[in-house]
């Protein structure tokens, strides 16, 4: 084959070497179509992602929009659980112990007006009205996996902001090591306060560094609307790498302490529910395995349960919080 020189251009001694115009034009058309098709597929995936991020509003409660969060790990691509399931299958013992009880009974909660008291080891203790808390930082949409200690899971698009925003504003003292979250315990609004299932009020807690982790969410809404009462209106915690019960609902008090708070389930059954309660498929609950989970609304009756992920799939983000810790001992 002759090597074309820069001066003479391409030499085509035999006419059959030349590609007919019709053929090469057809090739170009094919390439154009392929490129368009490929781009189309890519765009479709992108559009799909957007569709997930902008979860459809159920149209039941007041809108509370949030912009997609930029925090790493804050937007799982998994399909969100239906609003119907997420708002009718709840553990909120102040309204009854059956999963359907909270949706039935929580209409008496009255989430407005509401104040959250900040107390303990902070420079700026005080009472925050709900309106002020709502405005404290920009509302973000975060799609988190939620893994219940009982072995089921959901995917929920929450609306809120990092708890760290609030913590920084109240300026914890150097002696503050833990944060305690106290749920409302009002007999008049919560029919099961007075039952002996738990020691009321419901108290949960985090280590200060856990509370400051950007994934730790102070949530005010879900599915683009304010929280339904049964999901912990008007303000709750969401800690996606821990079992669901760590995420206290309907919070009235946030207290900064030096000692590890005595948390509700830990008090009720210390050998079963540890203070940390990080999702961990390797550390079983004393009475059942934590290796697998059933995704509500996704996995059919006969589907095998899916594997539970370390730190509920947030190991990359939160693993370093526990480096060097024996997670079997500190379960």
């Amino acid at each position: 084959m002759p090597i074309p020189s820069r001066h003479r251009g391409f030499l085509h001694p035999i006419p059959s070497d030349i590609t007919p115009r019709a053929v090469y034009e057809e090739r170009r058309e094919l390439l154009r179509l392929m490129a368009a098709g490929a781009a189309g597929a890519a765009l479709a995936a992108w559009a799909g992602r957007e569709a997930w991020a902008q979860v459809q509003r159920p149209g039941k409660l007041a809108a509370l929009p949030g912009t997609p969060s930029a925090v790493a790990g804050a937007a799982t691509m998994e399909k969100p659980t239906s609003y119907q399931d997420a708002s009718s299958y709840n553990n909120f013992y102040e309204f009854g112990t059956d999963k359907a009880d909270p949706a039935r009974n929580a209409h008496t909660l009255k989430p407005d007006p509401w104040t959250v008291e900040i107390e303990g080891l902070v420079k700026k203790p005080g009472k925050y009205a709900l309106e002020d808390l709502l405005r404290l930082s920009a509302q973000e949409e975060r799609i988190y996996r939620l893994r219940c200690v009982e072995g089921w899971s959901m995917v929920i698009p929450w609306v809120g902001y990092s708890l760290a925003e609030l913590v920084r504003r109240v300026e914890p003292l150097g002696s503050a090591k833990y944060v305690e979250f106290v749920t409302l315990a009002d007999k008049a609004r919560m029919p099961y306060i007075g039952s002996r299932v738990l020691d009321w009020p419901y108290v949960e807690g985090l280590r200060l560094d856990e509370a400051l982790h950007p994934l730790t969410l102070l949530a005010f809404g879900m599915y683009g609307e304010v929280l339904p009462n049964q999901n912990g209106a008007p303000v709750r915690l969401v800690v996606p790498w821990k079992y669901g019960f760590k995420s206290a609902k309907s919070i009235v008090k946030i207290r900064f302490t030096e000692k590890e708070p005595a948390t509700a389930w830990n008090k009720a059954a210390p050998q079963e529910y540890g203070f940390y309660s990080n999702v961990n498929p390797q550390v079983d609950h004393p009475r059942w395995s934590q290796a697998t989970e059933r995704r509500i609304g996704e996995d059919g009756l006969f589907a095998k349960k899916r594997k539970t992920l370390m730190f509920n799939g947030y190991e990359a983000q939160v693993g370093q919080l526990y480096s060097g810790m024996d997670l079997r001992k500190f379960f």
Partner: protein
Amino acid sequence: MNPLLLHRAAKPVVFGLALLPLAWLVWAAATNQLGANPAEALIRSLGDWTLRMLCLVLAVTPLRVQTGTSALARFRRMLGLFVFFYALLHLLSYAGFDMGLDAAEIARDIAKRPFILVGMLAFGLLVLLAATSLDRAIRWLGGKRWRALHRAVYAVAVLAVLHFYWMRAGKNDFAEVWAYGAILAALLGWRVWHHALQRTGSAAREGPLKARRLL
């Protein structure tokens, strides 16, 4: 009451009624009415119905003796077999929906959870009772031995309540456990009381302990 219970249609009617809970569950599962976690709802409902059937079958003899409705005895075997039937469905749904029919997984679960072990023990006894429920088994074992064997249903009652108690223990939620426990305790307590009564009664008469056989 007796003529009604002796009616030709009485047994088929009771049979049909005892199948209604299952029919409802199948229909609810098919029409998506079991809530967000249908597997859990099915497993638990079938367990509840096993307990209810157990209460029913253990109520047959006290009711029959106290009210003198001898025809009630016709339904005892059928109701007993329905206890076994609902227990079997309860176990199958647990094995299928929760354990993915994985035998090794189930074995691990039995070792891990005392309440599963207790449930399995109760089911083992029920298998024994169901297998010896035929007339032929009664003839083969002889009435006396057969009756002794079938007193194992009292152990099933105790194990079933313990199974339920342990299952609810994690949530300190015992209201329903006490309800079933109280019903079953009353039904077993009646037997103890009746037995003692028969003994003193027959001792006074110096007669044979005929009435014991009715238990």
